[in-house]
């Protein structure tokens, strides 16, 4: 493997890892606060990618690349803002109707509604957009690239990595420095005590879902831009990998989830590079099993594993 291939694959892994990191953040936040594996989360990501595709093709009627950098930036900001807002609202609606009524029910109940919601979202998209894969307009010109160690790197992959870093940083600031972030952390630690201290639990959980789903929406936009092709089933395997990333990083830990996402991206890309392309999903799954066997609390998580 020479240096140019290595560089190329490094950037591919970074892009893929960005997508997984963005989805994993939502998993880890929701699990951190209400201890629920939100199976519908991967499908929120998928709906986000379809929303972005629809926005680009129908209201904006984009079909090729945008050469003007100012216009490109404007379109990108618009797409990210609209999709993130829309997915945030979708997440809040899901929480309100499918999870909140079951907050005191046996654990199995919300898990089952989560899987139900996942299928509802998939089916709605399938009915609206059809079963065949859809093309997302490539608004980034593919020929605008730069050379690095003999590899030709598209600016898109750099952009994706930077925007992911920005969103992760913004999330850290929000959770660590704001009043609502503090409410989230306290609710995660002890819901009743937080309530006694005057934290509005329902609103805090709704905000968590809003942010997590918005980040998944951003992941959906990035996915469409990077792969150019989306289908109604992409949420399933991306969600599974992102969850693996969240477990790997230590569930409940946002930094861990982001790191885990990049790690999974690297595992997938480099297992493909060494000729195991068809086995990349199996490799990720093997990572999940190994983490659960040897370090169930994840790389950065606190040990909470043995509890029932």
């Amino acid at each position, binding site marked *: 493997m020479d240096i140019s291939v290595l560089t190329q694959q490094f950037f591919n892994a970074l892009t893929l890892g960005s997508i997984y990191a963005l989805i994993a953040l939502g998993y880890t*936040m929701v*699990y*951190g*606060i*209400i*201890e*629920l*594996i939100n*199976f519908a989360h991967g499908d929120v990501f998928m709906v986000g990618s379809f929303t972005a595709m629809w926005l680009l093709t129908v209201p904006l009627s984009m079909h090729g690349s945008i050469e003007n950098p100012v216009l490109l930036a404007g379109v990108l900001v618009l797409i990210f803002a609209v999709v993130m807002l829309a997915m945030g609202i979708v997440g809040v609606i899901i929480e309100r*109707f499918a999870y909140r009524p*079951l907050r*005191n*029910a*046996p*654990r*199995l*109940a919300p*898990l*089952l*509604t989560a*899987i*139900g*919601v*996942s*299928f509802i979202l*998939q*089916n*709605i998209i*399938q*009915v609206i957009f059809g079963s065949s894969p859809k093309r997302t307009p490539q608004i980034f010109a593919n020929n605008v690239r730069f050379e690095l160690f003999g590899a030709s790197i598209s600016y898109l992959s750099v952009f994706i990595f930077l925007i992911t870093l920005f969103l992760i940083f913004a999330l850290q600031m929000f959770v660590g420095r704001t009043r609502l972030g503090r409410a989230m*952390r306290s609710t*995660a*630690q002890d*819901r*009743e005590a937080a309530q006694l201290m005057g934290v509005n639990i329902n609103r805090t959980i709704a905000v968590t879902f809003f942010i997590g789903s918005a980040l998944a929406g951003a992941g959906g936009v990035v996915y469409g831009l990077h792969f150019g092709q989306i289908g109604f089933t992409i949420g*399933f*395997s991306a969600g*599974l990998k992102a*969850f*693996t990333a969240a*477990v790997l990083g230590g569930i*409940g*830990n*946002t*930094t861990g989830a982001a790191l885990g996402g990049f790690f999974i991206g690297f595992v997938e890309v480099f297992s493909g590079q060494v000729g195991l392309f*068809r*086995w990349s*999903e*199996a490799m990720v*799954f093997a990572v*999940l*099993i190994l983490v*659960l066997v040897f370090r*169930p609390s994840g790389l950065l*998580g*606190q040990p*909470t*594993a043995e*509890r*029932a």
Partner: protein
Amino acid sequence: MSIQNDVIRPQGQSPRERLNERLAPVTAFLAAHRSLSVLIGMTLVGIALPLIILLPPFSTFQSSSAWLNNFTLAGVYILLALGLNIVVGLAGLLDLGYAAFFAIGSYAYAFGASPFSGIHIPFWPMLIIGALVAMIFGVLLGAPTLRLRGDYLAIVTLGFGEIVPIVFKNSDTYTRGTNGISSIYPPELLGYRFSTIELLPFYIVMLCIVAFAMILIYRLQDSRLGRSWMAIREDELAAASNGINTVTTKLLAFSLGASTAGLAGVFSASKLTFAGPDQFIFAVSFTVLAMVVLGGMGNIWGVAVGAFVLYMIQNVLLKGLNQFFDIIHVPIISDINFIQYQFLLYGLALVLMMLLRPEGLFPSKRRRQELHTAEAGGDEAVTPADEAGGVLS
């Protein structure tokens, strides 16, 4: 229960209560002899079904052999639902990759009895071998994950269910990849060779396997092990404090569920004479889960009926609706492909069921009480946050 009813007789009785009282000796007898009641029930159903389809609304809809074919394949799903009911309904563990064990059973038979592998082990021992192989995989997967919190099992089984078909698809040399293994040998009994044209023998064998599985699961449910499963489902900490080894008990539920799917897999491969990776996609696991939840988690007859009804809706009613509206040409409705909405319906049914009637359509008494404690007990219900302090950093 019947004795108590005799002693304390409420004043105003509804006709339904009076009927229940009249039937009390019968129900008491059936409850005391569950194996016998399963045998009687399955025999009656087994005889009734082939007769009903000879009558007009059914006989005009499709041929009796098509019906028999549907019934036999519905039996595979009943078996799957019964097995998943051990895991989800009795032990309260969420298995989202159940189709993986179904696949393992199918491929086990395909390796054991097909021209492709060049081996021909008879069907009957293969039933046991297939169940055992699936069970071994259940133990291998369950042992590391069942030590952890219940939710991890859901995600690990989800991954496992995704990976197993991929493994079968990618190992072309051993499994012929996406083409699958075809012309698998059908069963033989006392020199009689089953054929895909003659459906009645398959139907009868299916009935026997389902009846056997139901008796076995009933006996398990009433055993010490079954009570341990329910204790763990209701409160794992309390169960552990009372001396139940939770890991072993959960592992037994998980692997017994897996072996039932293996059994279903062997039968399905012999009936279809085919095993291919596309038969075992996630939608299968999800369908079986919907069957268990709709039928009533923990109630064996409820789950069996739920599986039968959902299979018939999916494979007969929805197709029938398509044909019906194609023929009568209602402008918009004729364009709707009802099969396309199948999973939307399952998803909605699952969500609404958990919100409105979590005990399922045919609930087990105990499960119903348990699922409604949260409403009745209010503050006493333990919130997940109490059990384990979450972290968000």
